[in-house]
C-alpha cells in the first residue's frame, strides 16, 4: 500500500489524469481508506480549477490608446 506521503507526491498528476493506470489504481485504493489523502487530492483538484478560473477572469484592462490608434490605422 502507498504511504500518504507518496500519494500526495503524485496528487497533481492524479488530478490531471496523468500517471500510469497501475499508480492511479493504487491511489484510488489508498483514498478508499484514507480521508486525509482524499481531502488533499480534492484540495489539489480545486486549486487547479481556481487557478484556471482566476486566470480566465479578464480584469478591466484598457487598451493603450496608442495601440488602438495603430489598430484603427491599419484597418483604414
Amino acid at each position: 500500500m502507498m504511504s500518504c506521503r507518496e500519494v500526495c507526491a503524485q496528487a497533481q498528476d492524479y488530478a490531471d489524469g496523468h500517471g500510469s493506470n497501475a499508480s492511479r489504481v493504487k491511489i484510488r485504493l489508498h483514498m478508499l481508506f484514507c480521508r486525509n489523502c482524499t481531502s488533499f487530492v480534492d484540495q489539489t483538484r480545486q486549486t487547479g480549477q481556481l487557478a484556471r478560473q482566476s486566470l480566465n477572469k479578464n480584469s478591466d484592462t484598457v487598451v493603450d490608446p496608442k495601440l488602438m490608434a495603430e489598430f484603427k490605422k491599419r484597418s483604414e
Partner: protein
Amino acid sequence: MADCDLHTRLLGGDETAFTEAYASLNPSMVRVAGAIVGSNATAEEVAQETWLAVIGGLTKFEGKSSFKNWVFAILSNKARTRAKRDGRNVALVLEPDEDDSAQNTLNARFNADGTWSDPPALWEEITPERILAGRQTWQIVRGIIDKLPPAQQAILSLLEGEKLSAGEIASMLGLSQGNVRVHLHRARERIRQTLEREIAASKK
C-alpha cells in the same frame, strides 16, 4: 471566442475584438515576457512591441498554428532578443532549492513513516465568487499567482490560462517538458497552501 474567428474579426478591423483579445492575452503575455526578460517594466514594453507586430502582421498570419500560438511565438522571440541585448541569460532555469519551500512545507506535515502528522481539512466546494477574507476567491488566487516566481507565473498562465500544452510551453520557453511540470506543480502547491491558510483563518 474561437481562435480563427478572432483573427477574421481582427482582420476586418473589429475594435471590440481587439479590445477582447488584448484583455484576454495581455496579462499572460506580460507574465511570459517577464520570465524571460526579468523585469516587469521591460516585459510591458515587449508585450506592447508584440501587439504592434501582431497588428502589422495580421495579413501575414497563415493559420499554420493557432492565432494564440502565433502571438506567443512573436512574444517569446521579442523577449529573447531583448534579454540578449540587455545581457541576460535567456535560459529559464529552475530556481534553486529555496524555491522549493512549498515542498518543504508539505514534507513537514508527515511523520517519518509517511503518515500524516498535520492532515489537511476537507474543503467544501469553493467557487471563484466565494468571499474569503473580504475578497472574492478568484481575486485572492490572482494575487497569489502575481507573487509566484516569474517562471512559475509564465507556465501557469500559458497552461491554465491559455490552454497551451506542456510540449508547446517547453519549446516556447526553452525548457524540457519535465521542467515545465515541475514549475507547474510547485506553483499549484504554493497556491494550495496559501488558500489552505486563508480558508483556515476565515473559519476562526
